């Protein structure tokens, strides 16, 4: 395997900004009861995205939107196969019962993370409904899970990697597709 890996930009900073603004408007359009809507970011990539969406939604709705975070490490189904994953804080500073929860993640792939996140949400209450917003949908679902709001659909091969870099963590907003 002496082949050099290839790195393609699939979302620039400007494009990411536009995409998040659009998703926020779609969320607002779908959920007219702004008081009953909360955002929950999936650790780690989804948390900062959820905060940004909340910022845009606040501009649309004229009121702050609650943001929580959920870590799925304790709810995954592959503890046997993988090493124990790092566990990040799950913070749910509000009651999700009877709310519309918009789960936010950076990349939708097999769907197993979202399955685990749905499980984890159960421990905190019974939402009226759960919607899913993702920045990138790269296909290859292994479960019957579908996003309600998609930033960009990116056809990928299974062995490729989608690298989402956000300014909060990496100092820049960009998404790469890495072909090994």
């Amino acid at each position: 395997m002496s082949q050099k890996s290839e790195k393609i930009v699939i979302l620039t900073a400007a494009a990411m900004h536009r995409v998040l603004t659009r998703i926020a408007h779609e969320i607002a359009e779908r959920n007219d009861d702004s008081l009953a809507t909360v955002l929950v970011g999936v650790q780690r990539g989804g948390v900062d995205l959820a905060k940004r969406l909340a910022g845009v939604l606040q501009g649309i709705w004229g009121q702050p939107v609650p943001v929580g975070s959920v870590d799925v490490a304790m709810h995954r189904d592959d503890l046997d196969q993988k090493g124990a994953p790092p566990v990040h804080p799950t913070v749910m500073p509000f009651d999700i019962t009877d709310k519309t929860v918009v789960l936010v993640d950076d990349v939708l792939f097999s769907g197993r993370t979202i399955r685990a996140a749905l499980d984890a949400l159960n421990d905190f209450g019974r939402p009226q409904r759960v919607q899913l917003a993702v920045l990138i949908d790269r296909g290859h679902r292994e479960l019957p899970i579908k996003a309600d709001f998609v930033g960009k659909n990116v056809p990928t091969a299974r062995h490729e990697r989608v690298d989402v870099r956000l300014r909060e963590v990496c100092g820049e907003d960009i998404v790469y597709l890495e072909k090994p």
Partner: protein
Amino acid sequence: MTWNRKHLLDIESLTAEEITIVLDTAKAFKAVGERAIKKVPALRGKTVVNLFVEPSTRTRTSFELAAIRLSADVINFNTEASSLKKGETLKDTARNLEALNADVFIIRHSAAGAPHFLARFLRGSVVNAGDGAHEHPTQALLDAFTIREWKQRIAGLNVTILGDILYSRVARSNIWALTKLGAHVTLCGPSTLVPRAFERMGCRVTFNVEEAIANADVLNLLRIQHERQRKTMFPSIGEYAALFGLNKTRLARTKPDVLIMHPGPINRGVEIDSEIADSNRSVILEQVTNGLAVRMAALFLVTGGKGPQEVGV
């Protein structure tokens, strides 16, 4: 840095980074214990065996509840009712339990090295819940967790361990953990119970209580382990209490924010005065709460992964 160990046998072989992983993981599990639903499915379908070949209630209960909160099935195997009394060897007992497809073995044994011995031939994971006077890793981890929670750091702190050091696995594991994390550890107690040899583990030994407690940020008091002492190491309990017990007079000479810890069970009026044990500087009950979180983290980490493997994001 990720956790790559199948067993948790001692603190001596862990790196500072590995200890920190356990503490960070425990923090997340502590939050689980504060929710209305205190249970996660991480170890669903796994079988955990509590193999306690030495009497213990609090550690066994803590491990049992930790396993239950991770959704594992738990078997308690006590020496009293077991075949070990009928002449079966530890190895055979463990193999029999493994034949029931147990995944994790939590072992408490009076012989130092018993968990290491089991880890050599068992396919499952082994967690040391105390072996003789050797180590008690989860106690040291919960002590470190408690210190970090209250003091926001461990590096640079002065920690004094006061009492029966010689027979204490808690002391040994604590010394390893705290020195690896950068604390300054002082040992103090009757000279018969605090041998100078401990200086080789990187800590200071003193027999002067007033001096040992004056600069301490943390005071960890240990019980006199009557059950382990083969001969009388000091004249009387009364004399021990007078010379080394933490009373009001001594407490007045400590730092105002000193953290008072004790692994339990406490002997009120011996190593610690009753009102001090119940005071707001004592975190003895916090240690019990944190012990549960640390044991959940330990079981979670040793169960994770039989080797790196590519799995979907």
